[in-house]
């Protein structure tokens, strides 16, 4: 269980650092301005570097994983989504992966029964959990836009309204806060409970889950429990996005925990598996059209190679070929 506790302790320590530093050493400038700027820079530069680092490597062969009928004879119905033959089709395929986790939707669970007999049951839990987690994070991220604008754009306000329509608490409770916590719990629990997942998982799989969990809890704490000064936060945030280096005002320490953990996530992001966010768009088994017999795919490093030619072959077997009545080039 070391691989579960180590990352948990790391996140706890990370959360403690800004709390102590801001509360007892008044280091709010470091945690409110310098670290967020550094983190944003590392995140953006790192992310772009990783994308560039992938993109500069060629895709020598069209290795599409076809998950449906190819385009062939006119009367055979093609599966345009799972075996697209155009670039547009492939783009749609990738988007269904990004937006709806289409491949995960296929997931099954295999069980070995007496016989021995293998039985496959549909298993949509990971798909549901994953989708709930990622979509909640997206909505929560978008909601935060209100800290960066004097007057938030209309669609942000609309998202906020939709997210809080239950009006359970004051301030209004956001459903996504609950959903993301449930999804996070599920994602951690399955890694611990399922034997296969426990073997597969590394510390680096638990760490971002705990880190995001810490961010969400700190954020929710500020909203629902330990109120912080929203106006000062907004002033700080608007300052940051307009490249001002003004010192933050009096904000509760919990805010700095939240902001520091977000900064840590941003720094960790480009160097970790979290880059799957960019990779999903580049996966050659999904983002290429299945038209490799119809259109020539170029491999930039392809060079004419040496092979055993017909002439060499005939040279070795000419007499035997003649005896067998096979035509030959040279007599």
């Amino acid at each position: 269980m070391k691989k579960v506790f180590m990352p948990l302790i790391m996140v706890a320590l990370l959360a403690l650092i800004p709390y102590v530093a801001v509360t007892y050493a008044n280091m709010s400038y470091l945690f409110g301005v310098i670290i967020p700027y550094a983190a944003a820079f590392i995140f953006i530069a790192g992310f772009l570097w990783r994308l560039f680092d992938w993109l500069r490597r060629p895709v020598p062969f069209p290795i599409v994983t076809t998950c449906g009928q190819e385009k062939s004879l006119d009367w055979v119905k093609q599966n345009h989504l799972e075996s697209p033959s155009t670039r547009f089709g492939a783009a749609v395929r990738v988007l269904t992966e990004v937006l709806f986790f289409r491949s995960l939707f296929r997931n099954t669970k295999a069980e070995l029964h007496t016989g021995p007999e293998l039985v496959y049951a549909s298993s949509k839990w990971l798909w549901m959990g994953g989708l709930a987690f990622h979509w909640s994070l997206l909505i929560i991220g978008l909601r935060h836009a209100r800290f960066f604008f004097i007057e938030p754009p209309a669609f942000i306000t609309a998202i906020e309204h939709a997210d809080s329509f239950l009006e359970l608490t004051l301030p209004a409770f956001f459903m996504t806060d609950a959903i993301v916590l449930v999804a996070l719990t599920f994602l951690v629990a399955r890694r611990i409970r399922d034997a296969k997942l426990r073997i597969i998982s590394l510390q680096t799989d638990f760490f971002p889950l705990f880190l995001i969990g810490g961010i969400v809890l700190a954020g929710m704490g500020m909203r629902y429990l330990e109120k912080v000064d929203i106006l000062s936060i907004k002033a700080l945030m608007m300052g940051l996005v307009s490249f001002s280096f003004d010192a933050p005002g009096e904000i509760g320490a919990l805010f700095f925990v939240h902001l520091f953990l977000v900064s840590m996530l941003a720094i960790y992001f480009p160097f970790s598996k979290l880059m799957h966010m960019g990779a999903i768009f580049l996966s050659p088994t999904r983002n290429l059209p299945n038209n490799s017999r119809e259109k020539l795919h170029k491999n930039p490093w392809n060079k004419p190679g040496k092979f055993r030619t017909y002439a060499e072959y005939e040279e070795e077997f000419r007499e035997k070929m003649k005896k067998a009545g096979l035509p030959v080039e040279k007599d």
Partner: protein
Amino acid sequence: MSKYAPRKAQLAREFLEKPTPLKGAQADREWWEMPVDFHDGNWCFPGKPETLKEIGFPNPRKWAATDEDWQLPDGWQKIIHDGLKERLKKFRSLKLYLDACVRCGACADKCHFFLGSGDPKNMPVIRAELLRSVYRNDFPMVEKILKGFSGSRKLTAEVIKEWHSYFYQCTECRRCSVFCPLGIDTAEITMVARELLNLIGVNNNWILAPVANCNRTGNHLGIEPHTFVQNIMSLVDDIEELTGITVNPTFNRKGAEILFITPSGDVFGDPGVYTMMGYLLLFHHIGLDYTISTYASEGGNFGLFTTNDMMKKLNAKMYHEAERLKVKWILGGECGHMWRVVHQYMATMNGPADFLEEPVSPITGTKFTNAAATKMVHIAEFTADLIKHGKLKLDPTRNNHLRTTFHDSCNVSRGMGMLEEPRFVLNAVCNSFNEMPENTIREKTFCCGSGSGINAEEFMEMRMRGGFPRANAVRTVKKQHQVNALVTICAIDRATLPPLMRYWNPGVAVYGLHELVGNALVMEGETPRTEDLRENPMAIADEGEDDDA
């Protein structure tokens, strides 16, 4: 049964009793602490020194996987390290798939080798981690600092043994990549790992011997031209005996319209030869102007299981011969990995084939626009088009003695997307076709368990394990519909499924699609047919009893 496989009852008991992660056990062990085990039945014999010399591969020597010392060459760590670095530059897929995996576990129970062995290292995610852990130790800078955190480890001789074991317990079937939310393709990892292992002389004779043969004689079995012709002519005699029809295949004939290339297994292997007889009958039936080459006499390409360069080198013969014979286009027989190469690699590696024409069926006039660049058409597409246009005289009752199911070959379904054509043909030539359960067919099909060059006798235990999910699905339809014929469009399947069926499902025989076409074809001037191409009696008398297709 083979001395390299345990008895079925023993294996079946182990499936149920042995604690594995598939059954929720072993959860507290780390995979990198589990030792590699080599015993009879789970490793393939290494390439013979003379074979390696013939194809110019490094480190020829006598050795075995059970040896303590594998006699790796001096500086082997550097060879692997540099080899990986080079391939990371050449393949975005490799870099991306090493970097992006989130270990979500969707692939874990999708691999037939995991389902048949319960071995955690056969979960596709861990198979990739075997390489990824070494990559992380050497490449991305930050993870280098955080070793224990990101699960990286040093490259040791023990790791090489592990790679050799598990990258040959992967058939590059890509079932895992169907389920992966990021489309990570373990075959890409396995291919590179095998290339790296070949660089230091860690290899597999069942792959390298066919490679050497194919290079020299044109086919895997090393059959020289005169014997190749003789063999097909003996099939011609068999056809004449059975049907009274004399078919006239030609060889190396210049100016033929079509060059026909099929795996050599169809020419020499039982039951592949019956499929070959089906092709010959079909071509005669429609009066096709075609020729067969003794030089490009292999559709299969074991280079795919070796190195990229070798795949390209062996494949080059197809276009080279088509150009020399001045044919218009190429027709390809039933094969799995051959079609992965033809569909996804051939034109890119050895094209463009400007000397050929866009394929048009001379019988129906159908343009195969989907093969416009590669200029090679799959026989199932070709035959489906003939049947659709009513160009074949078929009597499906001649296959009434067969209650069939269809095995989608991994490469044809997931590396090409040809799912409907073979089903259309099969439905036209027989009256009893029964699908296996939906999670085991089409893009979710299970591998035969012995593809990608591990069809060796000495690997029988792993083959019977890896083939278990496929056999299990066949057993379902055998019970439900009394299926006795497993139809495939792959030469490796025709070689590997018969022993698998004998082991798990006695009573189910393996057929090629065009063997059934050959049975059903009503030839002009034929003698009354009472036996199928295997000389088994047809069930022509019980008409009308069997129409539940």
